[in-house]
């Protein structure tokens, strides 16, 4: 409702995208219109006399540079604020229009960010409030990945196989930036890197699997919230949603372009259990399958009454097309359940340990987060998730049982934590102050980036691997926040830690003799289903534990996530199992990096068995 003639700023912006990889579905049916919060998208012009090479919003910058040739090619950035473009709901989707590609990556990335904003109840900024860059045509390759050091997501493009192109035209150029799934997947990696930087150390096989599985979950479920798409698919599949490959195949065109004839991964997988697989991608797929199964169970039970009404109790739907009203109602249910699942999975983040994540920890976090915010669980999702995880062999070993109350994280009953309530309460106030400052602060500008190329000799690196590994130095990723309250709060936390005597630290579940790493924290402010708001603070306390693994002394992150109430009471203390208890896993992982697949020792100076290498992780998937 506007109050004055000059008040024309919109609330939302609508942009058209491809919801399903362009060649997989017939023309027109694979488009969707994405609604995102409006923000100005100016072209970046440091120098008025020169052209712009990027456009940006608050958190994202789209830089269309093609680095694949000997000379980089900079493409003109789209002006999405141009009236002509904006009034058509953005540029028309076209594979040959590079500015549409820019629009697409911006739209899907923003949509994904907003999912996290909404679920977590706060705006998630990237490190240092600097922008994440999206490069839609970065290099020639059948891959796309998040590059932490460059603060960018690099999308490759490639030619479909001439002889076995699948659904594509032979020799057609395929752009990974036109795949909704790939964009959402990569942006999720960037966000997870921000929320849990110490997940970049793969201290058990579930860590990498979690990265991939969680990113796939975001991609699939976000697609399931595109109403038009779901409606078409439900109509085509005769309300049996499981029959719709389009909804559940991840990055279909991408996989087909590679000549394998199949989508890259299928979320609707078999009944594989966690215990049956060891390879990390296969493990990640089990997690996706579990969450998907929970969604399907919940959707089917929610739509059971609609089917009963439509069939007069027989449960057998008529042949041919379904009544459009029925399809519309089923779509609404599907979108609602999918959104709830996605929100539930994202909210779990606040309840994850700061390092060494396992599927069991994720399950407990899921259950706890949902219980905190949705005690009633009208959609029956919690029970579905637990059951689906059980069938896939995902347990929380320390929970002892699968009852919801056993899976809930242990409330911090310890007297030890009570002693510090006053200190923690002061922290909460500082955190709220930080929130305000963050919202008011502008994005720091910088002229270039901080990337320093590896100094390995060219041939060593080039033959052993195609390109240098893409890893995050979790301690230094992006730059430090420099807002005053952040500094004050960070210092306060470290000071508090330093006042603790070693045996006090041990009683609190931390290492007695290691310094605290720079703590990560954020306020959390959520609205529960009955409408009341709760303020709180989530702090990640991390120390580095020195262990000799594979003959080399290494540092592994270990720590606690504290979920603190506004009164200073610690509601939850979430840690991970001590490394001593799964030392053998670490040894095995160290060994696997220094031996090749057939067991012979290899001499690869770049091999770090515990690193999460974003490029290699995706190379291995296709």
């Amino acid at each position, binding site marked *: 409702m506007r109050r004055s003639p000059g008040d024309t700023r919109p609330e939302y912006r609508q942009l058209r995208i491809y919801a399903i990889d362009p060649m997989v579905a017939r023309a027109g049916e694979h488009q969707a219109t994405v609604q995102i919060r409006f923000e100005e998208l100016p072209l*970046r*012009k*440091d*120098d008025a006399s*020169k*052209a712009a*090479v990027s456009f940006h919003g608050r958190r994202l*910058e789209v*830089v269309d*540079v*093609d*680095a*694949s*040739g*000997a*000379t*980089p*090619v*900079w*493409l*003109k950035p789209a002006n999405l604020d141009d009236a002509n473009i904006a009034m058509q709901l953005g540029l028309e989707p076209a594979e040959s229009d*590079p500015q549409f590609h820019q629009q697409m990556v911006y739209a899907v990335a923003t949509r994904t960010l907003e999912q996290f904003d909404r679920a977590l109840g706060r705006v998630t900024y990237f490190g240092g409030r600097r922008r994440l860059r999206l490069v839609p045509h*970065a*290099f*020639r*390759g*059948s891959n796309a990945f998040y590059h932490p050091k*460059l603060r960018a997501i*690099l999308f490759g493009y*490639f*030619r479909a*196989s*001439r*002889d*076995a192109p699948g659904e594509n035209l032979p*020799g057609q*150029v395929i752009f990974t930036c036109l795949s909704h799934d790939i964009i959402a997947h990569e942006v999720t990696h960037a966000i997870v890197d921000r929320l849990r930087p110490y997940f970049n150390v793969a201290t058990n096989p579930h860590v990498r699997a979690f990265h991939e599985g969680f990113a796939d979950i975001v991609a699939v479920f976000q697609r399931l919230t595109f109403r038009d798409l779901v409606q078409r698919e439900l109509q085509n599949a005769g309300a049996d949603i499981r029959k719709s490959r389009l909804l559940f195949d991840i990055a279909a065109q991408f996989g087909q372009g*590679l*000549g*394998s*004839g199949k989508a890259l991964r299928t979320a609707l997988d078999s009944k594989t259990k966690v215990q049956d697989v060891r390879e990390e991608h296969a493990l990640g797929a089990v997690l996706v399958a579990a969450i998907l199964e929970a969604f399907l169970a919940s959707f089917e039970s929610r739509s059971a009454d609609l089917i009963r009404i439509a069939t007069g109790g027989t449960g057998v739907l008529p042949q041919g097309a379904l009544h459009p009203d029925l399809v519309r109602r089923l779509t609404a249910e599907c979108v609602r359940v999918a959104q709830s699942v996605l929100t539930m999975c994202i909210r779990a983040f606040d309840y994850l340990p700061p390092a060494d994540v396992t599927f069991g920890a994720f399950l407990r976090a899921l259950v706890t987060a949902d219980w905190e915010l949705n005690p009633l669980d009208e959609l029956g999702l919690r029970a579905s998730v637990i059951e689906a995880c059980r069938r896939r062999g995902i347990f929380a070993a320390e929970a002892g049982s699968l009852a919801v109350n056993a899976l809930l994280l242990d409330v911090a009953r310890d007297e030890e934590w009570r002693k510090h309530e006053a200190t923690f309460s002061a922290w909460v106030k500082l955190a709220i102050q930080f929130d305000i400052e963050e919202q008011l602060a502008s994005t720091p500008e910088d*002229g*270039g*980036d901080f*990337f320093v*190329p590896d100094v390995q000799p*060219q*041939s060593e690196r*080039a*033959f052993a691997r*195609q*390109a*240098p590994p893409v890893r995050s130095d979790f301690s230094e990723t992006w730059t430090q926040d420099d807002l005053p309250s952040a500094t004050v709060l960070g210092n306060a936390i470290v000071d508090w830690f330093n006042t603790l005597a070693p045996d006090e630290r041990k009683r609190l579940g931390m290492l007695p003799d290691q310094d605290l790493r720079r703590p990560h924290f954020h306020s959390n402010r959520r609205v529960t289903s009955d409408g009341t708001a709760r303020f709180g603070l989530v702090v990640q306390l991390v120390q580095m534990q020195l262990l000799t693994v594979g003959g080399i002394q290494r540092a592994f992150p270990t720590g606690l996530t504290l979920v603190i109430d506004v009164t200073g009471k610690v509601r939850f203390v979430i840690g991970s199992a001590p490394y001593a208890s799964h030392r053998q896993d670490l040894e095995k992982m160290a060994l696997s990096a220094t031996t*090749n*697949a*057939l*067991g*012979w020792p290899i001499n690869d100076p770049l091999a770090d068995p515990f690193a999460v290498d974003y*490029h290699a992780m995706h190379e291995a998937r*296709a």
Partner: protein
Amino acid sequence: MTGTSKRRGGAMKNEISVRMYKVGFGDCFLIRIPTEDGERRILVDCGFHSQGKGDFSDRELVEQIKEHLNGEGLHVVVATHRHQDHISGFGEKDLWADVTTEEVWLPFTASPDSAQDEPALRAWQGLMDAAASICDAKGALTPAALAALGSRDAVDQAAVAFMLWNARANEPAIENLLRGFKRADGRPSERRFLPEKGDYPTSFKTPVLPDVKVHVLGPPMDPAMRKSKKVPSTWGFDSALAGAAATPFDSPFSEDWRVPAESLPQRRPFVDKSLEAIRLFNDDLMYAARALDGFLNGESLVLVLEIGHARLLLPGDAEVGTWMTILSNPTALDLAASATFVKIGHHGSHNATPLVFVKEHLAENTPAMISTQEGPGKYRNGIPLQDLLSEMGLRHMPFVRSDQPPAAKQSVFAPGKDGHWIDCKIPC
């Protein structure tokens, strides 16, 4: 002519003779088997890499084999996979014209019909043809190909040339194998594309080899295990194939969409060094060459010939995918582990023989032969693998390398004239 052979060089009763020719970086094995109906002769591979020549040229090799056959024919010709260093000799069609063979065995991926079941195989064939276009018969890359590898240094370029020469489609040899050979009675030789349909691992007997049971442990049917699933994009080859006519770089978008160079601002979101680093992620010719190398190794036949008490394990150049399939299947693993003779895969590289197989599954004292040659460059570095040789030593496995004469005390091996071949006797 086939028939019982009591001539010199023939197999003694109860003893199989395996003759490894000193071809350098390649494989060529002549196996003589005593059977109830007389001696049977199998030729497993015949080739070497042009950069790894041993004691023979292609023609000399075939002539030497013919001399050893002494007018008799072969019963089976086996081409384990289509790498040049295993088939280059088969291209000498005129020399082979008067050598008969009853059967020719090839991996199913080499069958002309294979692409129907697996369309991606056509794509791989295309890459082999492309490799032939950009790497000439002498192993030199075309100027366009070298330009395509511009960002890589000489060592990498040499490695790519090595792989591409090996992978280039050898039309005469493949033609000969698919259509060239004839049986003793004049009919075309029967072709077997292995494995034939059936539960893994398949096995069969052929009238041509009485008393012999053949087990086929590879290649696996699952394309992922053969590294066949992901066909590399053709960028790398395209720019090299197009030759001088091609522009050095071909952005998919026309000039209209680009910011002209003179309008570029001074400060840009990525500095030039970052862009160079991004370029390294290109799937260039090197990437494609390595993928093709892996694919061809992955199609290797892995055979266990069961003759009486003897089990000859012949794994071609089978790599990790095939071995994982073998190790994870109890029947296949038992068959492989029961070997009383092993031809070591891929010239003794780190990629073709699992450590655990040597350490725990193969029996001690199993004799082994490695057809290999050391050489310079990144690709040949570590061939043969010292760790593998040590491990075999620890298992008391008598082994011999084609490039070194057998130790005097190894009675199971006997060098041939001037060391041009080495014989091994396996009791059966």
